């Protein structure tokens, strides 16, 4: 069925969008002009994200304006004004300095969406240290992998997370000097300290040292098909992209109340849950609790949210709820809805128009791109199912790899790999300690995204699929290798093969096929034990939700698990090319 475009009439919108003339804006765009809208550190001492997002507003009329409102359980909420955020992040920066944490050293944060996370974020950047978030639903194994590979010097976390997941790892993490506990009033020992005590002892006055725009600012781990997660390195210069996407895509205006529902454990939650709204001096809503339809509608109404950035999984959960529930809430303040994380199906875009009274604007980007790259815009017609058009300043293309050193750009309506011309400010600068993997992402002038897509004749991009085995579950990337390695640690498991099984609400669920060691036999009891084992080690964000026993895994002659084939069998699809299959024939 062909779905008609959703036409826009910018003149009829309550707020005139910043980006009205897409073609002309693209033609005249320069990154230098974005730089001129940022302040830079005083006395020409460089560029620091924390100064742009917090300190420059704290020094002006926005000092008492709420920067971040943290909503907690049972109606509790904490407001952090721009002035308050400056003072508290200064304290954290001083605290890091007093602990001897140097420029470039990594400070990790493992917590839910609570106020301390945000002051930790900006304080770390002020000290020119590097912030690395950990999703709070990670289990001990993903936490250990990231702390170790990221050379963590400090971990900020809660007492509960510490006792449940971190305490047992400390011996294996000699580089980790301090664990700071957000909710403990006294030090546990010389290595595990009370954050409130240290904050109280620190000064609220701090001068950000000279910061080179190319200094490392944020480290985001992302999953790969092979091997353990890769640490994508982002620099302070990325703030250019955060700023301009805040203007052109999110369309932030001074009076906006913005709500990004993403967790800062993932890149959307830092780029847009922390940085972008504050760059524009608006109020950003943060909810500590997880998704709940009633709660979310209530937040939209009570907080008078105007611009909302959410994800397909949440939208599809809202779509399940009865219309009557939606109708009890007044969402008149809401003027713009965005979505990211995985492609938004056309039905969801149309549901937005019908039920929320607003179409949903899908956009596309990755951990590696640091910010939104392709988007639907407030003043531009939406083609439901399309990710939209490239951000001004971004050159996208559909390419085909011809050999290891060259790619062939394709024309319209041709399926190929989505590529971006390298050099935009928020492009990742490295995979930490892995130059070879970084180089492999680029061919000539192009960054190859690993996503398959096509461009239509009017320049809209359409997602087709992943070019690899990475699983996208509830908007999060899960690397099959990481899950397989973990399950193989169980004494009953000889081999494991992991796939993403399509699921209508969360996109894909992690499913594992297990080959048992001799002496073990398949049973419901063992199935549950292995599910529990995965959850204990990996946490709910990564662990398989489905598990099936299998006699043997399909493998290539070189011994690589053919996950594509496992998936085809699971779905009852044609098995495709099996010429490299071990034994040379379909099983």
């Amino acid at each position, binding site marked *: 069925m062909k779905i008609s475009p959703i036409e826009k009439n910018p003149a009829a919108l309550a707020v005139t969008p910043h980006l009205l003339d897409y073609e002309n804006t693209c033609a005249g765009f320069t990154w230098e002009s974005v730089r001129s809208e940022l302040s830079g550190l005083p006395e020409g001492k460089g560029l620091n994200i924390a100064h742009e997002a917090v300190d420059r507003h704290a020094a002006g009329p926005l000092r008492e304006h709420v920067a971040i409102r943290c909503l907690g*359980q049972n109606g509790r909420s904490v407001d952090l004004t721009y002035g308050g955020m400056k003072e508290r992040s200064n304290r954290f920066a001083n605290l890091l300095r007093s602990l001897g944490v140097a420029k470039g050293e990594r400070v990790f944060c493992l917590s839910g969406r609570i106020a301390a996370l945000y002051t930790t974020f900006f304080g770390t950047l002020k000290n020119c240290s590097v912030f690395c978030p950990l999703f709070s*639903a990670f*289990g001990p194994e993903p936490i250990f992998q990231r702390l170790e590979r990221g050379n963590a010097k400090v971990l900020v976390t809660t007492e509960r997370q510490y006792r449940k997941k971190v305490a047992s790892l400390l011996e294996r993490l000699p580089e980790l000097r301090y664990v700071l506990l957000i909710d403990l009033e006294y030090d546990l020992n010389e290595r595990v300290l009370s954050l409130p005590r240290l904050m109280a002892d620190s000064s609220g006055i701090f001068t950000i040292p000279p910061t080179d725009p190319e200094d490392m600012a944020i480290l985001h781990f992302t999953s790969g098909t092979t091997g353990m997660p890769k640490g994508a390195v982002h620099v302070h210069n990325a703030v250019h992209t955060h700023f301009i996407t805040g203007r052109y895509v999110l369309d932030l205006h001074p009076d906006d109340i913005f709500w990004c529902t993403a967790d800062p454990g993932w890149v959307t939650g830092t780029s847009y849950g922390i940085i972008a709204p504050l760059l524009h001096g608006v109020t950003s809503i943060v909810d500590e609790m*997880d*998704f*709940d*339809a*009633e*709660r979310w509608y209530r937040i939209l109404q009570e907080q008078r949210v105007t611009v909302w950035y959410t994800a397909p*999984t*949440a939208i599809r*959960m809202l779509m*399940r*709820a*009865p219309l009557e*529930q939606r109708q009890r809430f007044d969402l008149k303040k809401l003027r713009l809805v965005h979505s990211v994380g995985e492609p938004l199906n056309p039905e969801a875009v149309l549901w937005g128009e019908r039920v929320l009274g607003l179409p949903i604007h899908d956009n596309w980007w990755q951990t590696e791109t640091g910010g939104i790259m392709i988007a639907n815009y407030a003043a531009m017609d939406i083609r439901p199912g399309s990710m939209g058009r490239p951000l001004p300043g971004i050159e996208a293309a559909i390419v085909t790899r011809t050999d290891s050193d060259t790619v062939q750009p394709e024309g319209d309506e041709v399926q190929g790999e989505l590529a971006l011309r390298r050099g935009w400010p928020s492009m990742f600068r490295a995979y930490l300690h892995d130059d070879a993997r970084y180089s492999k992402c680029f061919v000539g002038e192009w960054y190859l995204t690993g996503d398959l897509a096509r461009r239509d004749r009017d320049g809209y991009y359409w997602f087709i699929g992943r070019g690899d085995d990475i699983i996208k579950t*509830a908007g999060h990337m899960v690397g099959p290798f990481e899950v397989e390695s973990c399950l193989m640690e169980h004494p009953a498991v000889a081999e494991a093969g992991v796939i993403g099984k399509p699921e209508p*609400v*969360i996109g894909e*669920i992690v499913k594992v096929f297990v080959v048992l060691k001799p002496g073990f036999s398949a049973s419901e009891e063992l199935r*549950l*034990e292995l*599910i*529990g*084992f995965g*959850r*204990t080690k990996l*946490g*709910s*964000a990564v662990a398989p*939700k489905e598990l099936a026993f299998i006699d043997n895994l399909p493998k290539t002659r070189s011994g690589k698990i053919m996950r594509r084939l496992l998936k085809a069998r699971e779905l009852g699809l044609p098995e495709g090319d099996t010429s490299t299959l071990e034994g040379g024939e379909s099983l």
Partner: protein
Amino acid sequence: MTEKELKEIVFTELKKIAPECDPDDVDPDENIREALDIDSYSFLQLIIALSDSTGVDIVEADYEKVFTLEGMLRYLSARID
């Protein structure tokens, strides 16, 4: 259905989603999603399973009432035939 039977049903369904957990260790007033590391998707599966096994329809607007063990048991026992 007795309170004990109901509790057993809830615990059985919880153990299917989080087999590693011991629901007896959970504080009755604690948010079970947080305490047992149950994400939104699995919580939905739990609700569906409990609706099936008890015959009580838990509507979306009431999910907040069943975030704790105590809330869940109170909600179900008040509506069970």
